[in-house]
């Protein structure tokens, strides 16, 4: 699958992780390749609801399978969940610019909610290419049970896993942004983040104040095409020139210092 291929693949597995969160898995066809941070547009090849494709970050590529970690939020993400195995799904991708993987002694990943999705594959790849590096994951959840099962299954990909929940029911209480103090000064850390807009905005400010330079955020915006033609997915540019960039082409991974939050 070259960048931007269009493939209709049968759904191989839907695995529930926790209420409302699930893995959507496929067999990787010959030549399938993509990098952490890439996304795909998933749609129905039949002419039904949902109509438009939906962007999903590659969640993991492992052995002969690849998958997306999805949270059922609305029409399409709830619909994918209900599809019987074998259902055809159209995948367009990989799309966008993936995470750069600079050589660093520490890789710090910060996730909010389903923003966790791209980090399994990123960790897996960093483990392989930088075996000596330390990979840390800090993530925030609304309540305790959302991601715990994932960590049981895939937690060994990370050297450190710190959890934050709004209610403190699992891990530390509070937001993930509050829990970064000890790492913030580390000049050798590379930062990666994905999550709700408000979290990313706060995190961008913290990292900026702390002088972190090696920072990559995976952002979201509504998309209709995913490959630069519809002009839907605008992200306001800090510099103001041009006023907007297209998330599907210039992102979804962006340097937060270039974004007008």
């Amino acid at each position, binding site marked *: 699958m070259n960048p*931007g291929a*269009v493939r209709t693949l049968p759904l191989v597995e839907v695995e529930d992780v926790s209420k409302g969160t699930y893995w959507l898995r496929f067999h990787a066809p010959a030549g399938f390749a993509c990098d952490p941070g890439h996304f795909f547009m998933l*749609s129905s090849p039949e002419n039904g*609801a949902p*109509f438009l494709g939906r962007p999903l970050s590659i969640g993991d590529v492992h052995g002969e399978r690849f998958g997306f970690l999805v949270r059922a939020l609305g029409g399409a993400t709830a619909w994918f969940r209900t599809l019987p195995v074998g259902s055809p799904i159209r995948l367009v991708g990989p799309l966008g610019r993936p995470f750069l993987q600079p050589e660093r002694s520490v890789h710090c990943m910060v996730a909010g909610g389903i923003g966790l999705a791209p980090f399994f594959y990123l960790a897996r790849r960093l483990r392989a290419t930088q075996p000596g590096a330390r990979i840390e994951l800090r993530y925030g959840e609304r309540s305790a049970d959302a991601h715990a099962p994932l960590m049981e299954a895939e937690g060994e990909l990370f050297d450190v896993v710190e959890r934050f929940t709004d209610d403190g029911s699992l891990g530390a209480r509070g937001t993930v942004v509050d829990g970064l103090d000890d790492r913030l000064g580390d000049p050798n850390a590379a930062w990666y983040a994905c999550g709700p807009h408000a979290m990313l905005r706060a995190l961008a400010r913290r990292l900026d104040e702390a002088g972190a330079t090696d920072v990559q955020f995976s952002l979201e915006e509504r998309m209709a*095409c995913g490959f630069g*033609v519809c*002009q839907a997915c605008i992200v306001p540019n800090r510099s103001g020139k041009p006023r907007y960039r297209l998330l599907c082409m210039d992102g979804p991974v962006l340097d937060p210092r270039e974004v007008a939050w």
Partner: protein
Amino acid sequence: MVERLATTCGPLELANPVLAASGTFGYGDSFERFWPLSLLGGFVTKTLFVAPRDGNPAPRVAETSAGMLNSIGLANVGWEAFVRDKAPRVNALRGRSRMIVNVAGNAPEEFGEIAARVEADRDVVRCDAVEVNVSCPNVKEGGTNIGCHIGQFRDAVRRVRAATTLPIFVKLSPNVADVVPFALCAADEGAEGVSLVNTLYGMQIDTERRAPVLGTGSGGLSGPAILPVGVHWVFKVRAALPELPILGIGGITTWRDALQYLMAGAQAVQVGTASFVNPHACPDILAGLDRWCASRNVAIRDVVGAAHRVGEAVEEPVWTG
């Protein structure tokens, strides 16, 4: 394949009747990663203004039943950047595929200005025709403000005509009581043809936020939902003005949809929203039309306007039996 699919739309000789619609195909090179541009009968660029435009605030799209709303607001790189960065590259790729540059302005005078720019740069740009977008629902000035008021409409078309000898297709809005007088006016003013339809006005409300979804409130409705609306107006325009070349647009997703437009009277069609969902929509439609023509032993030219020819109807379908 070549022979059965060839069609003529006014001054445009087309290798086949499938074009990509404005605003859904970038400036011509965006789909190169999927399939070669030279496959198409032609394509229409994103609407170009003299100066670049940022467009409207986000969110700019929303999904509806069998369709979508957009409020892009004619974001474009501007004429100069198009001539400098896009046209040469696209010309190297397009082969026999026709390039139609779509233009607009904020007022009738600006339509004249951009047309003059196209005329001045025509040897560099090498476009085959100009499509005049007076029907965008997503701009405060210009757009449907011009395209839905016959006086301004006439003024804009006249200025474009005065500025260029390139073939002109005027892109019509369905947001009027009757599209026919606008088609007639375009023809009167010397346009070579019309493109129809642009998007319908539409709005979606996020009932949890209790506010419109799109940043601008309303937007333009496109996709399969509007197919019957486009077919209706193409049929009506063809009936009233049988000699006026028509590019049929609106909701085309399958080759059968394209056939509906051709039979309603369009010489060729433009595919828009469908390409977002299925980037292979245009070649898929092309292949389907080719198979159909082959199996029925007809050429595309033969079926253009067929739904107007009473008596030509091919046997009643016997659904049982």
